């Protein structure tokens, strides 16, 4: 915040990598071009989007604790907080390099540009990404995405997974599986070549996380007391305010998730994307509310929240290529689908405390296919291929990882630990010290 710098204007515009800010170097900057200024605006927009994606992690944390019991709250918060850290660090270490290997290193299915972050020579200039952003912005925006995929799993396996096993799983999943699949599409791999369209990641991010979640709940089994004899015994979440706060923040963050995926601040594109995103979320809320009101006789807040997320996941693949009208349809269907999916999974005795599989996997698939229906000139078969390929890769990998952990360090806490709650057994800490809570 040194205020008397006279070189600021020139330096900023010239867009040099002022890591060791050298006024001298910048001073020679010639006349400022419009492209350079556009670069400044684009890059600032991309960082704003990055910040918004970051805050989604608070959204996920709040939603997850809200929909689970207070005796596992510290554990869930710890997992979600650490995942952001692990996600960023591993993405810096290898993920970014796996996902965007660049032309020199890319295969169709796999590429790796080396360990760590090294800004290319043109990394801070217009050339790097057609003036959309710098190399650092690129990394950070992508890094925030990476952690999201792992966080999705967290909600589904909550209240019974061992902390250490979860951390190992997440680290591997987010640093290997996620970037490899990501590369197929966004790293200019084979899916991209096949004409697959996934704007901001209904498949590449959400389904990837969703497949991990599905594998997790299959291998782990349901929470004790969820399915007794022939009946489903719902286990109510302990804080609807936190769950709602989480859903609001996720919607808020999604403006960055989708808005930033335009990769520039192009007015027509980012504004269309924000509109389709909002309308799909709104329609998702209505679709889920009406469906749950109809099925459950009373409107279920947790379903309305899931509806918003369903609409958001659903629109993520096609936010840039569908009309606002189509986005309403996509969102509304996602809202209906998510409620049916939550109820259906429960019937199938797959215990997903927060509805992660329904929201991220089922609606991720729906959204991806919807591009083939509503997106002008988009190929349904290509969309189907993307969906199938992702599932065919991610589910087995996640399943194998989970089984491997189960066979070695163990995947699930003991029955007694689960009954006491993971806050006690894993952390020796209370989430709401002093509050009198009956947690059967």
């Amino acid at each position: 915040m040194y205020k008397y710098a006279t070189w600021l204007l020139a330096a900023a515009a010239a867009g040099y990598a002022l890591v060791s800010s050298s006024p001298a170097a910048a001073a020679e900057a010639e006349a400022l071009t419009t492209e350079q200024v556009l670069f400044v605006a684009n890059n600032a927009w991309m960082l704003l989007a990055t910040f918004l994606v970051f805050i989604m992690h608070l959204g996920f944390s709040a939603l997850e604790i809200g929909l689970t019991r207070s005796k596992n709250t510290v554990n869930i918060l710890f997992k979600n907080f650490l995942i952001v850290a692990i996600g960023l660090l591993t993405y810096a270490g290898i993920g970014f390099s796996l996902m965007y290997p660049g032309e020199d290193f890319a295969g169709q299915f796999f590429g790796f540009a080396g360990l760590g972050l090294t800004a290319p020579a043109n990394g801070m200039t217009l050339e790097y990404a057609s003036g959309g952003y710098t190399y650092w912005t690129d990394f950070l925006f992508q890094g925030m995405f990476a952690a999201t995929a792992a966080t999705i799993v967290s909600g589904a396996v909550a209240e019974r997974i061992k902390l250490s096993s979860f951390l190992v799983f997440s680290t591997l999943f987010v640093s290997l599986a996620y970037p490899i699949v990501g590369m197929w599409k966004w790293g200019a791999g084979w899916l991209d070549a096949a004409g697959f369209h996934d704007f901001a990641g209904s498949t590449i991010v959400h389904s990837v996380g969703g497949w991990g979640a599905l594998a997790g709940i299959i291998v782990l089994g349901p929470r004790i007391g969820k399915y007794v004899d022939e009946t489903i015994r719902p286990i109510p979440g302990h804080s609807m305010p936190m769950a709602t706060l989480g859903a609001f923040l996720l919607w808020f963050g999604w403006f960055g998730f989708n808005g930033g995926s335009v990769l520039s601040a192009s007015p027509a594109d980012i504004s269309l994307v924000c509109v389709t995103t909002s309308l799909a979320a709104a329609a998702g809320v209505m679709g889920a509310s009406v469906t749950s009101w109809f099925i459950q006789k009373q409107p279920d807040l947790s379903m309305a929240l899931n509806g918003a997320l369903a609409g958001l996941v659903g629109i993520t693949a096609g936010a840039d290529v569908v009309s606002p009208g189509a986005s309403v349809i996509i969102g509304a269907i996602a809202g209906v689908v998510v409620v049916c999916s939550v109820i259906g999974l429960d019937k199938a005795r797959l215990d997903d405390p927060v509805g992660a599989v329904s929201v991220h996997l089922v609606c991720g698939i729906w959204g991806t296919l919807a591009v083939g229906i509503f997106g002008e000139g988009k190929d349904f078969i290509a969309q189907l291929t993307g969906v199938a390929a992702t599932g065919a890769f991610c589910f087995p990998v996640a399943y194998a990882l989970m089984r491997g952990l189960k066979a070695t360090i163990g995947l699930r806490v003991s029955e007694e630990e689960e009954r006491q709650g993971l806050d006690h057994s894993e952390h020796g800490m209370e989430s709401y010290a002093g509050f009198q809570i009956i947690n059967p």
Partner: protein
Amino acid sequence: MKLVIAYIQEDRLDHVLDVLTKAELHRVSVTNALGCGAQLGYSESYRGARKRVNLLKKIRLEIAINDDFEERTIDAIKEGCQTGKIGDGKIFVLELPRCVRIRTGEEGPEAIG
């Protein structure tokens, strides 16, 4: 002396305290409770699955009194809580052989009030 325990509906609490005060019963202890009884529970729906809730929210009162206050206390509780609807609650009266006021060490009937 007697120890009167009563389970009442949550929304009668303010009223019963008013009535007790009018009956010059100024000492009461109150605890949250959950109860099942003749009153049927209800069923909630959470995320599409139905859940029977049999434990309803109740308030538990505990009042230590001298013997001659027994009827008065019971009448006051009845007055404050009777609505005629199932779930109004119960009163249990126990013998209380000994009572001590911690502050002064006083015992017996003087210590009650």
